[in-house]
């Protein structure tokens, strides 16, 4: 009664199967099985985990990174990455549990398109793009254009995500990731904030990127805050309701919207200060004493 299981070792094989069958893509299985529950699977499955070259992090000559679609959270957490990716690595260590991190993939996290996906805010702050392959070729989409809404992506039938591409971060950029949940492990975020920041020689913010997850259908960058922050000291940066305008939190079993609004303002403030402290400590803010 069950469908067939395909474990291609080449991408074109996977695309061929997807082109001809109503097949479901699996990689880590960590979202697929919980969604399946006790139902029997009748569809075919295409397992991307054995495709050569799909797993691993590659640093390209231009300083950009290419993270293969089958790269797991544990791979990310253990990789030697630049400080701008520390937030992404902190997010990696906060995904579910060690067991989940060993199986779950970054690309799966994006394709599952949960509003509370841990990977999305840090990747947004890294200006990530999604590399997509189909039988007709490859295309790239900015992450914010890839995730369209809860459980909805721009992936077309027959396409798979093959990599996540991160352009070279700004010089001296550091990062932070703060996750708020009601328990320590195995927890879905009530709210989360990712920050990529660099300080100028005077200790003022030279560049800031902030993204917030679990407070809108898709995680969002806080553009107004980012713009306003440049030239300010992190300690004096106050997060206002206007800064949070892109967010539209809801009431759910984890928290109500009013709480999320309030907590996320605090969380953003803390994450920015934490990143600034890292930058100052790293000497990125050369000579500035109040980072």
């Amino acid at each position, binding site marked *: *009664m*069950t469908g067939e*299981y395909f474990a291609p070792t080449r991408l074109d094989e996977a695309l061929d*199967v997807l082109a001809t069958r109503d097949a479901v893509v699996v990689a880590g299985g960590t979202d697929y099985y919980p969604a399946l529950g*006790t139902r029997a699977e009748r569809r075919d499955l295409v*397992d991307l985990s054995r495709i050569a070259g799909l797993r691993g992090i590659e640093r390209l000559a231009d300083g950009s990174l290419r993270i293969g679609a089958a790269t797991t959270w544990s791979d990310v957490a253990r990789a030697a990455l630049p400080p701008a990716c520390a937030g992404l690595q902190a997010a990696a260590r906060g995904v579910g549990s060690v*067991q989940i991190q060993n199986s779950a993939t970054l690309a799966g996290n994006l394709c599952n398109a949960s509003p509370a996906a841990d990977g999305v805010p840090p990747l947004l702050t890294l200006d990530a793009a999604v590399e997509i392959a189909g039988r007709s070729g490859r295309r790239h989409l900015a992450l914010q254009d890839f995730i369209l809404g809860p459980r909805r992506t721009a992936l077309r039938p027959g396409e798979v995500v093959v990599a996540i591409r991160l352009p070279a971060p700004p010089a001296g950029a550091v990062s932070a990731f703060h996750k708020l949940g009601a328990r*320590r*492990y195995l927890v879905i975020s009530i709210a989360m904030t990712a920050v990529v920041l660099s300080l100028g020689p005077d200790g003022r913010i030279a560049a800031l990127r902030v993204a917030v997850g679990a407070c809108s259908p898709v995680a969002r960058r806080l553009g107004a805050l980012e713009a306003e922050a440049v030239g300010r000291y992190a300690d004096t940066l106050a997060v206002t309701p206007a800064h949070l305008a892109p967010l539209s939190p809801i009431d759910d079993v984890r928290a109500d919207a009013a709480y999320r609004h309030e907590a996320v303002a605090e969380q953003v403030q803390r994450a920015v200060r934490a990143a600034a402290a890292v930058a100052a400590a790293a000497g990125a803010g050369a000579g500035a004493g109040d980072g």
Partner: protein
Amino acid sequence: MDKRVGIDRVAFRLNGRAVDLRAGGGERLSRVLRERLGARDVKVGCDAGDCGACTVLVDGAPVCACLMPVQQAAGRRVETVAGLVAEDPSAQRLVASFADHGAAQCGVCTPGMLVSATALLREETAPDADAVADALGGVLCRCTGYRKIIDAVVHAGSPEPTPTPAADYGDCGDWGDGGNRHDRRDRGDRGDRVDRRESDDWGGRHDRRDGRPGTSIPRLDARAKLDGTERFGDDVAPADALALRIVRSPHHRAAFALGDIAAWRAHRPGIVAVLSAADIPGINRFGVIPPFADQPVFAESEARFRGEAVAAVVGEPAAIEALDEASFPVAWTPLPETLTMDQATAPEAADLHPGRAGNVMCRGRVACGDADAALRAADLVVEGRFATAFVEHAYIEPEAGFARLVDGRLEVHACTQAPVMDRECLAPILALDEAAVRIVPTGVGGGFGSKLDLSIQPFLALATLKTGRPVRHAYGRQESMQSTTKRHPGDMRVRIGATRDGRLSGMAFEGRFNTGAYASWGPTVANRVPVHASGPYRLADYRAEAMGIHTHCPPSGAFRGFGVPQAAIAQESLFDELAERLGHDRLAFRLRNALDNGVPTVCGQVFDQGVGIRACLTTLQPAWAAECAAATAFNRARGTLRRGVGVASGWYGCGNTSLPNPSTIKAGIRADGTVVLHQGAVDIGQGSNTVIAQIFAHALGVPVGAVALLGADTDITPDAGKTSASRQTFVSGNAARLSGESLRRQVLKLVNAAETSVIEPGAGVLCIRDGARRHAVELARLSADGDGYVLAACETYDPPTRPLDADGQGAPYAQFGYAAHLAVVEVDRALGTTRVVKLVAAHDVGRAINPLLVEGQVHGGVAQGLGMALMEEYLPGRTENLQDYLIPTMGDVPPIETLIVEEADAHGPYGAKGLGEHALIPTAPAILNAIKHAIGVRITQVPATPARVRAALRRQEHEQAQAQGREPGQQRGQEGEDG
């Protein structure tokens, strides 16, 4: 299409052995390991990666086997706990350390813990507690409170393992003299450990074989729980068993009509039977309290809660697995539901059950003195309304088992807390004599009260009777959460008065408890709450009324404390308000009003011995002084993070409330010299297999290692009652003591030896040393009874109680156990998050038969109390999984210091009192009181989620701003003094 990439065979190495099998698309690795490769040591708790019980190593990395398609294992190494324990030195060290630390209770999470820990120790020698928590944080445990597990892993990983804390506590030679109180400290979290005297490769020591009361022997059933051989409900079915699927209501309330079942079945080969209410040979009704029995096995025309069964499909496993439930012919007509007590008691609400007008299931009441007059006379009266949530038991083992017919009798093998009650409830449903039904409890992967009720058993039994074949089933996590009992949500209005000098003056308590669609243990909650809502204090003027209210929610039943933890939240919170407003120290206020020997309880019961609350509170005094000072110092920084200290008491009557509550324990000595204990007190992880054996062995006068255990099994163990109401150590323990004493008298009488003689069982012989004289009894010369025993005893103990009158006056329990907890929390004012930093738990257990197991119960209870206080809230239809329903993880339970107080009880075996439920009663109020101390706001609704704490702080800020004529919001970060 390229067929070369399709896979239908999978080959990998399982625990070093090559395996090769055909597999269907996307079969879960966990399922293949368990069902096709015999690796039943891999446990399944959720099938969603939320519990980690199924953790295995794939190429050395821990993964949830339930989330991995078996095809992904192809060509790789898969290791399970059984393989690791057999081969891996780290795993073997862990096993010994887990046994010594009492790190396994029910044992169902243990494989996941051990596998994760082995992976950690392979990568990292000498991990600290934080590293252990990071590595094991993905495995949930509901029994241990995690701290023993952390200690066990740290210990196993340390290069030179330090002595374990499992050795006995100093000189316990005076344990038999009664009345002496010993304060024993659980030093596990502070590294201050007692030397182990002797060890073997299993971590044993000489007192392990002795096991006299007072010694911390590792649990006798530890090995099976650690090496993967323990068999739980889903591990025991024969290979040819049929499977079943239960069709359940997707609506909170709905009328329904079954369609053409015959036509539906006609083109579904492999379906053997479809069962519904019409197929029940006996009475379609059950309940744990016969006068209130109201729950159908299958709803008949209306489903009263989401998840209620309406039909079951029985068939070959493949057919059941492939079943498309949506195709089942049932037509639902949703009806208006009442989910809250306010809705259910509104005038327009329909009654769920005839004869229970206004949806009031029953009421309970205790009154003494004149509460209203005392409140009027009080110098200060505080009042409050407190609300608690449905709490899910969340044992890691969902209900599971199988049934079969053997020689015309029905056998049900399933996890349960109450085998004899299961039989009593099942027989009338099946129209069978009780004698035709045998209940064989499997290993129980946690119970906490919910496995007292029938769950899976009637479906298995009916399906087996209908088909004549063995039938098995394991509830899925959602099915378990939807359909089994919960802790009652409470809505409590309480007023308590005090005089200026800090003496209580009147208390009035009114509580409504959401008992859901069916009665279950609701009447017990309604009765227990008024008896206990005073807390262990002297209150001459008291009135408490409780009622159970029916709603279209899952039935609320028994959950560790039967309503008492809810009531304690209200009472202990208001005690803090009284103390604070009177300007009294909060601990001193409790001491001033603590119950004492010779002082009547609110039921008018007077104990002339054994009242231990004062001792518990006194024992907390040093920690109280130190922690309060530390909190004050911490808060001088006036940061966002605030520290608070809280204290709360609890008491709990052991055994049934004013009802007969006997336990019977049988034992015998075989001709070959084996001493056999028929141990019918079901061990659900708490340790009755060990404690009952220790008591029995001591009474007989043999080392516990000389005792072989049988049971539980309704065919071979007499009724030792339910594992509930903190009664097994006390009641079954007494029956075991009486049996041991009886057997000892018989042995000594054989040779007319003195009472002080020493009995030494040997092969086919009993040696009896009577001073200088030595007798050898050749057992083969004695005639054996039908059980093969040459000497046998069967004794019953029933605690002395008296009925309660209309005002709840009487003697509800023969003994109470007492407890007081101190909690230290840090609250983040801006985010509303609460972290419990430390917990000190003082427990009067009368006599700690096994201090290690006492600590285990305390730790587990504290963890559940912490969950109830901070995160647990079951919302029917919304939190039906372990991802949305949060229980504490390894990172959420702080170090726990257990202070064992021994105020010996005249009725308890060797002075022992019950403990199981006491352990969580004070925890939640102590945490809430600590939150109030930290940030000055009183949380009156649990769980105190970050959102609720922030909402309370917003109200406080608003009120303070109004009081000062300012706009709210200006206050942030500059609030006034702490409470």
